[in-house]
């Protein structure tokens, strides 16, 4: 079983790279796959902060917005190559996350939620009102596509490879962080802050670091989004986006590699298929979240775990008989 497990990521990666050849004729599916990839990176970043270090954020749309806008502005106004601009966007998000995390990491859950919520609203207000830089409510159009030599990634099928290369790299990075001392420290802080402090862990340092890493993931996802869609406006980066990311993490199950992936896939497909219901879309979405919370309070991953546990028990007891 373990031998098979080792190859799962490799098999999945190869599968991901072949998908455009199989489904390449359906542009809608490719678009959806690209969006899912961006959400996987974004939600995995939130998971590192929320699932692993136990700090909640209701303002992750802000990091997403910073990554998207800075990358778009840097590439358009300053003529910086798109790939470099994406990193500039992501690191700007990191910088601002450190600025907001340094003073507010001392707060407990509810109050951290409120600070991040207000932070998200402020960034949204700035983006919507700084007309000279961000274009205000009209947004920025014609965000350029990335380019390597003569190869321009201007179609969704080509961009797909950029996104999924990033997805694989970011998931590997996440796994490396989780398995390292940093990841174990995050978990220690989440489980018992006082005990972690007693062990000589610099709580503040690691809490801020969790914010910074998380902002890097989400900021980069924002930059990927900006150059993928080619158009950004403040409407994308509201509190609803923060809630969407949180829903993905909670639904998929937090503190795991697969949780945010499952969450991103299911929630994206769900909200896309709900679009057919027109004005009822958000109503069904709200009902869906509520029903999930009421009937599987540990997310789909928790549900799967309890199902496998039940199956194992059943198998064992039948083996005994």
């Amino acid at each position, binding site marked *: 079983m373990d031998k098979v497990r080792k190859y799962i990521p490799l098999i999945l990666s190869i599968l991901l790279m072949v998908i455009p050849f199989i489904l390449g004729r359906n542009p809608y599916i490719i678009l959806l796959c690209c969006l899912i990839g961006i959400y996987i990176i974004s939600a995995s970043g939130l998971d590192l902060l929320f699932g692993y270090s136990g700090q*909640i954020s209701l303002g992750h749309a802000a990091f997403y917005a910073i990554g998207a806008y800075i990358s778009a502005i840097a590439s358009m106004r300053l003529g910086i190559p798109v790939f470099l601009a994406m990193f500039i966007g992501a690191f700007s998000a990191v910088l601002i996350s450190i600025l907001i995390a340094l003073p507010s990491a001392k707060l407990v859950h509810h109050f951290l939620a409120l*600070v991040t919520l*207000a932070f998200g609203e*402020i960034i949204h207000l700035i983006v919507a009102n700084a007309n000279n830089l961000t274009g205000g409510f009209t947004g920025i159009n014609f965000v350029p596509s990335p380019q390597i030599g003569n190869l321009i990634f201007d179609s969704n099928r080509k961009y797909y490879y950029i996104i999924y290369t990033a997805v694989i790299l970011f998931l590997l990075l996440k796994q490396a962080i989780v398995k390292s001392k940093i990841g174990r420290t995050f978990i220690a802080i989440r489980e018992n802050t006082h005990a972690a402090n007693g062990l000589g862990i610099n709580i503040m340092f690691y809490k801020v670091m969790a914010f910074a890493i998380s902002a890097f993931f989400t900021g980069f996802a924002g930059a990927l989004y900006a150059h993928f869609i080619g158009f950004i406006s403040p409407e994308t980066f509201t509190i609803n986006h923060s809630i969407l990311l949180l829903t993905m993490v909670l639904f998929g199950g937090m503190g795991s590699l697969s949780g945010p992936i499952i969450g991103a896939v299911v929630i994206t497909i769900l909200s896309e298929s709900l679009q057919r219901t027109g004005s009822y879309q958000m109503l069904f*979405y*709200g009902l869906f*979240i509520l029903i999930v919370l009421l009937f599987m*309070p540990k997310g789909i991953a928790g549900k799967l775990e309890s199902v496998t546990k039940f199956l194992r028990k059943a198998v064992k007891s039948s083996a005994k008989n």
Partner: protein
Amino acid sequence: MFIQLLIGALLIGSVYGLMALGYSMIYKASGLLSFTQGELLMLGAFIGLTFYRYLNLPFPIALLITIIIMFFLGLLVERVIIRTLIKKNASVIYVVLATIALSIIFKNTAMQVWGSRVLRFPPIFSVSSIKLFGIAMAPEAVLGLGISIICMFCMYLFMQKTKYGTAMRAAAQDPIAASVSGINVSLTTGLTWAIASALAGVCGMLIGPIYGVGISMGALIGIKGFAAAIIGGYGNMYGAMIGGLLLGIIETFAAGYISSVYKDFISFTILIIFLIFKPTGLFNEKVIES
């Protein structure tokens, strides 16, 4: 100009204060953050509008019916959803997310029922302006201010002088000791959510006649109510009122004398500054992990 701004400031400030009071009561009773208050305000305004405009009931009766409906809606939310989640040992964040989901449901239900246009609340008085101290002002603003002061006073009397109020305060302070002394803590918790919901409904009826009634009227006020609660010290009922009034005054005068663009910006900045530098609020409520 000054007096008119002040009346406006006090009105919106007392709305923030009543919202903050709801947050503080819920926090004290259940240790939870509720994101439904803003949408409950919106629902209250729509329900009041329906009774007043479409069923032609007199304003006081429409207000009373709204309060009663909102009271039971709050009770329902606590009994059916919050309690179920807590019984299942769901972590706090799931309950908070459930209140967010509820607010999405409320907002979109209202959109299906009343539409997404902003509806006008018909004037309550036959005159369009009255003169007070030689200054003309909208009678609806004065009425709103009056009702909110009465609300605050009633809440004070209820919490301090009645048996139920005392029981609620005791249950909030120490649930175990309260239940040992024969207080039905489950009832007082439900009552708290019900009262918070009724207060939000009243707020909707206060500002509906002035700003109009639309599905997105509650979202910003809901968040600003958090700011008011934090200024006063989250969980402190009297601090909530003062925090609300302060926020209303700062915001309205900044909008009046500097620029209205910065109005929302200022409220959120105040929220962040208070949480970072003085998370205990003006009245030193304990909120930080010690």
